[in-house]
């Protein structure tokens, strides 16, 4: 009797080879031969295989043990044989020079130096990180008070400088305005258009000169402040390490300096216009994770500005932001920008202005950071195009990709919708990280989908939030910063629904990336939106997200 049986062919591994397992046994006078083709390397468990053989061929139980033994012996022997052949093929390749010995050894060495600490040259400790450690220690010590006072003093001197600048600029503009008025009156009489233009150009120039002068001064001052501050922090840290020395030069803030800041400019009025509602939600089908959502009617930059009108709030906010700066719970903000990396216009300019109101003692200023971004973007373009070229060579991609890369070549330094760059700040009131997400005019139209680059950008932003412990993120819900006429009620509702749903999807996805850490997501709508609209949106949110049930407290009898 002969039987043949096909074992399951394992997922078509090409490297495997088939061998035949032959087993003979006799029962009474009859002799049986069992032939089983086996695919090597054998993936499955021997006892499973045995069980199948016994069942399929109706084999008698008395041969079970013997069969198992010979089966596993065969598998073991042949596997070793396979290992040996493969190993010797490789050794032969090296011996014959088919594989370059030198290159081989270097590849190994490279992997070791890149991945194993032991083989890596010790890194010279970077100043940034040392400072980070020192600062983190200090801000969590009693010295934090002193630190904040110092920061505040610097802040005050910068604001003085800025207000001085503003006054001077204002004066200049007034003077120029008066001059212009005069000239305009004379226009057509004694003076020609040309003269007016000349004057205008002259005015512009002198404005520029003045602005530059002030900007230089500001830059210089911040530079000095930063250096002083950092030196001082290091020194304070060293002093504190030495228990004998108490903090010698206690930095005190004149009480009137804190109070001075009460006289804000119209801050009170702005605050009243801010609307907000908070929700606690649960995400997930079986295992649920809890998150906080907040819907706010506010300006994006409200999170960045230091509010002058809060009496004690200034300090608390600062402390809160400072405490978490080097921690694992950062706060982020999504800013929608156009395709140029600069700070000349619109929200970019406003943001830059706000971030210059106070010296950043930890990170480079916004301008410097943007310069770095520009370089990185250029580098990324080069990397990416060479990669896509390689891809194009390998598999002929369709034209769309080429179109894209052609567009890119037109201006490599510009970024595309859906891409974003990141800046870091220590000087904003509630924000550590800003995501500058590039969007185009498409977001103003009513028909964007979940596949829109802006939405994909949001997803990537949330992913970065996951990998870099950004636990609070503020997103412009409507994907615009200002309202315009074409944004009707239905437009708003549709857009809000899309963003809510997409963010919900991304948050559920995030749970699988980071194991469901609780987060806060703030959705911001522009201030120009009506109260009614706001409440419509806040009614929509709990329909899309599952709001957690209210806690019912019952007393035990």
């Amino acid at each position, binding site marked *: 009797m002969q039987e043949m049986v096909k074992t399951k062919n394992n997922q078509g591994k090409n490297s495997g080879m088939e061998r035949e397992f032959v087993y003979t046994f006799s029962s009474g006078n009859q002799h049986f031969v069992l032939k089983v083709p086996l695919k090597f390397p054998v993936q499955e468990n021997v006892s499973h295989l045995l069980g*199948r053989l016994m069942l399929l061929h109706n084999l008698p139980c008395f041969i079970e043990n013997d069969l198992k033994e010979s089966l596993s012996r065969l598998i073991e022997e042949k596997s070793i044989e396979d290992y040996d052949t493969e*190993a010797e093929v490789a050794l032969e390749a090296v011996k014959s020079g088919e594989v370059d010995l030198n290159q081989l050894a270097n590849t*190994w060495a490279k*992997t070791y130096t890149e991945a*194993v*600490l032991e083989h890596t040259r010790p890194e010279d400790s970077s100043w940034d*990180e040392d400072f*980070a450690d020192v600062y983190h220690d200090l801000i969590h010590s009693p010295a934090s008070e002193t630190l904040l006072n110092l920061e505040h003093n610097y802040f005050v001197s910068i604001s003085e400088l800025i207000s001085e600048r503003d006054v001077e600029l204002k004066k200049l503009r007034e003077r120029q305005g008066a001059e212009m008025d005069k000239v305009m009156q004379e226009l057509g009489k004694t003076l020609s258009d040309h003269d007016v233009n000349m004057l205008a150009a002259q005015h512009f120039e002198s404005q520029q000169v003045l602005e530059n002068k002030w900007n230089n001064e500001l830059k210089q001052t911040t530079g000095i402040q930063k250096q002083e501050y950092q030196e001082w922090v290091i020194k304070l840290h060293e002093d504190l390490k030495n228990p004998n020395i108490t903090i010698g030069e206690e930095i005190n803030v004149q009480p009137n300096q804190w109070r001075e800041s009460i006289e804000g400019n119209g801050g009170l009025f702005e605050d009243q216009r801010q609307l907000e509602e908070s929700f606690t939600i649960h995400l997930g089908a079986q295992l649920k994770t809890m998150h906080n959502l907040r819907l706010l009617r506010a300006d994006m930059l409200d999170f960045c500005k230091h509010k002058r009108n809060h009496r004690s709030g200034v300090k608390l906010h600062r402390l809160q932001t400072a405490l978490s700066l080097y921690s694992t719970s950062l706060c982020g903000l999504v800013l929608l920008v156009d395709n140029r990396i600069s700070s000349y216009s619109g929200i970019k300019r406003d943001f830059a202005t706000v971030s210059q109101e106070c010296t950043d003692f930890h990170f480079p200023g916004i301008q410097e950071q943007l310069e770095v971004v520009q370089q990185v973007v250029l580098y990324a373009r080069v990397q990416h195009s060479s990669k896509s070229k390689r891809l194009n060579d390998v598999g002929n991609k369709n034209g769309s990709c080429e179109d894209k890369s052609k567009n890119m070549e037109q201006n490599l330094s510009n970024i595309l919708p859906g891409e974003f760059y990141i800046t870091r700040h220590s000087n904003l009131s509630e924000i550590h990280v800003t995501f500058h997400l590039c969007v185009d005019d498409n977001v103003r139209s009513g028909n964007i989908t979940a596949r829109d680059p802006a939405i994909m950008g949001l997803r990537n932003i949330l992913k970065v939030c996951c990998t870099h412990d950004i636990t609070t993120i503020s997103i412009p819900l409507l994907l615009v910063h200002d309202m315009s006429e074409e944004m009707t009620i239905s437009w708003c509702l549709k857009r809000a629904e899309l963003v809510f749903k997409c963010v919900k999807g991304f948050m559920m996805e995030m749970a699988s990336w980071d194991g469901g850490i609780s987060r806060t997501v703030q959705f911001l709508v522009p201030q120009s939106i009506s109260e009614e609209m706001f409440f419509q949106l806040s009614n929509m949110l709990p329909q899309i997200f599952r709001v*957690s049930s209210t806690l019912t407290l019952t007393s035990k009898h």
Partner: protein
Amino acid sequence: MFPLKDAELGAFTFFASALPNDVCGSNGLPLTPNSIKILGRFQILKTITHPRLCQYVDISRGKHERLVVVAEHCGRSLEDLLRDRKPVSSFKVSCIAFEVLQGLKYMNKHGIVHRALAPRNILLDQEGHIKLAKFGLYHMTAYGADVDFPIGYPSYLAPEVIAQGIIKRSEHTQSEKPSGPKSDVWSLGIILFELCIGRKLFQSLDVAEKLELILNLGCVDDILTVLAEEHGCLDIIKEVSENVLTLLRKCLTFYPSKRPTPDKLLNDPIFSEISSLYPTFHKPASLFSPTLRCANLTLPEDISQLFEEENSDYLAERSIEEVYYLWCLAGGDLEKELVNKEIIRSKPPICTLPIFVLEDGESFGQGRDRSFLLDDTTVTLSLCQLRNRLKDVAGEAFYPLLEDDQSNVPHSNSSNELSAAANLPLIIRERDTEYQLNRIVLFDRLLKAYPYKKNQIWKEARVDIPPLMRGLTWAALLGVEGDIQAKYDAIDKDTPIPTDRQIEVDIPRCHQYDELLSSPEGHAKFRRVLKAWVVSHPDLVYWQGLDSLCAPFLYLNFNNEALAYACMCAFIPKYLYNFFLKDNSHVIQEYLTVFSQMIAFHDPELSNHLNEIGFIPDLYAIPWFLTMFTHVFPLHKIFHLWDTLLLGNSSFPFCIGVAILQQLRDRLLSNGFNECILLFSDLPEIDIERCVRESINLFCWTPKSATYRQFAQHPKQTSEATCTRSLMSCFSSDYQDAPRSDLSRDSIKLNDLKSEVSPRISAEDLIDLCDLSGPSHFKTPTKKTKSSKPKLLIVDIRNSEDFNRGHISGSINIPFGSAFTAEGELIQCPATSMLQSFKGRVVVIVGHVAKNAASFAAHLVKIKYPRVCILDGGINKIKPTGLLTVPSPQI
């Protein structure tokens, strides 16, 4: 697992390589993170137990693909021997070689290759024996494919390993060539050589030079001499014994085909003297093994010797797994330990942010983070905190007596504390170190005595089940016995069957938030267990939901598929009898009807509302019962729910269902149909402890026969069952299991059942509940204690003449015809006011005509009377018992 003894616990960490951006697998689902793949593959290592191998204990995933592995650890390694810079004696070298080979052989038998053999990974225990560490790294990382770092140390890599190159992630091809067992033999050769000369080889060379040198050894005649010359130690080599030299030559054979395997080498005559010093190792038999568990038990001639070597460190006698579990409970934090030893040095996240991110998620401007490099130093986990925590635990706690009746045993102080702890909420008990220690020790002993101590396991499980022992305890509660492994092995789990496609679709959607179940290893196990069940139950079919049902068993018995399968096979007939029939509509329909009767029985108001808006159980409860709630709850809640469910009978799930509804009661009552559908499509958080507590309470209020189902499992041959059953309480025994008598419930047609709002109860139950003492010509199936019996009120709805002719004592008479007004209100009379004053008691409607009784009950439910039921068969059932009494004529 072995007891801890002198060993310590060690932890080391590494990163799995990150996945490329947004790549999907062939099934369109996101790729499994490498760390999860590793976590899945790791599990099997926990079962590899050998005195020459460091026992693996646990793996945990941290942030950003970090993995921390916990294993047995010893402070000293061969590295320390080499540091002395003295040649090691030939005898010692052979001993070390023999022991290493023993370890290697055992690993190879389980299909594992070390690949990272080096002096630092050969540890020395207190008695100077060796233990191999990190032997599973190559296996768990899929031969190094899932990590960025190479596995192995340059000096010890075998030539063929170097020649085969590194599997690079980026150019990941299918033709990966894993190293075979012989590459470890080469590494061992180098290590032994180093021991012989007392110092390390290739110290002055850099990595590339080392590797080139090793590969060039192929052109050399006598590797040994060349190496010795190279290191200027020919003199020392000359003094090495001939045996060891032979061994070295065999190990350091350049071509693998000529190099022996560890197995061959062990049987080599060079070890003939040494091998007799080592007894053969028997793996201790597990609970469900077919062999005799005490087969290898050797008692000393003189029993008193056992007492002599008594030491007071009882904790060291517990298994490593238990000690680690307790260590965690006592506040052990792996990451913190590693941070303290500066193995984990993470930078503040704000310093590592990328600068620019493309639309496809590729990021730029991120500096290479040094903290992601491999530092494979093993950190010893200090047990001080745990020992401190347990210092007051008396020795008796480690060796509890397993008498059935423990009331005679004088209570020590600690046991008083324990009983105090037993009243704390379950969540707190599960985090309490001392309490868990006691429970684990107790369950460990009881389970070792399974099935003999089955009853006591039941008894203790009613208190709680320690999470560490849950898998085996559940198996014991389900009555799993016999050679489960052989049974499982005999099932064909490979041949394709039509159900495969469905299984393949369902598995990647089943409890995938869990790391274990979402790993490829988990999926493969799922597939095998589910297929095994489908194949071995030809009369039943795979219904979606079976996967969820399998999940808790697989999770608890991840390394023991056979047990998971056996548990599932025992569970389904008990709780889901015939639910998996191809046409299961009659079973489900009956089940759901009984369920809606239970809702009406326990919560008439809710029942009225749900019926009014048409929100019937068919719309929401099928996944609840078909999966026994595993589809709706996360695993940790299922565990607590099932801890109780397994103790209950097959009607307990009804009570759980009602308890869930009651938690959502307010929202259900205030909502209409659409909102209710939405609410249940994504079930809100349920407080599971409360749910369990309330379902037990509901269960106690439910007469046993109220949940009678004709399609439930009918009693098996009760010959062996009865002996154990009699000891269990009524809570766990099934109504169906009780011997049938005339007074039991008769089956009725499904349509009739559907038409009745309230459940029927049997005469038997009625008699039992009323404690009617009469000529007891039958035995009540189980004794209930007085306190647990619900209070009862019998309402006789026959006309008063019939009533006066004979009725059940204690019953009140409200004739059906004159009970209700046209509006459905009760007509006031002494009897109805009595009924009103007893609202809340179980009300049993007794009548002649079933229809009347049913409609009477329906009326009562309408006006929100809870716990209304009907006597099955009416008064006629009671008549033959002679329990009817005739009131003395009123004067």
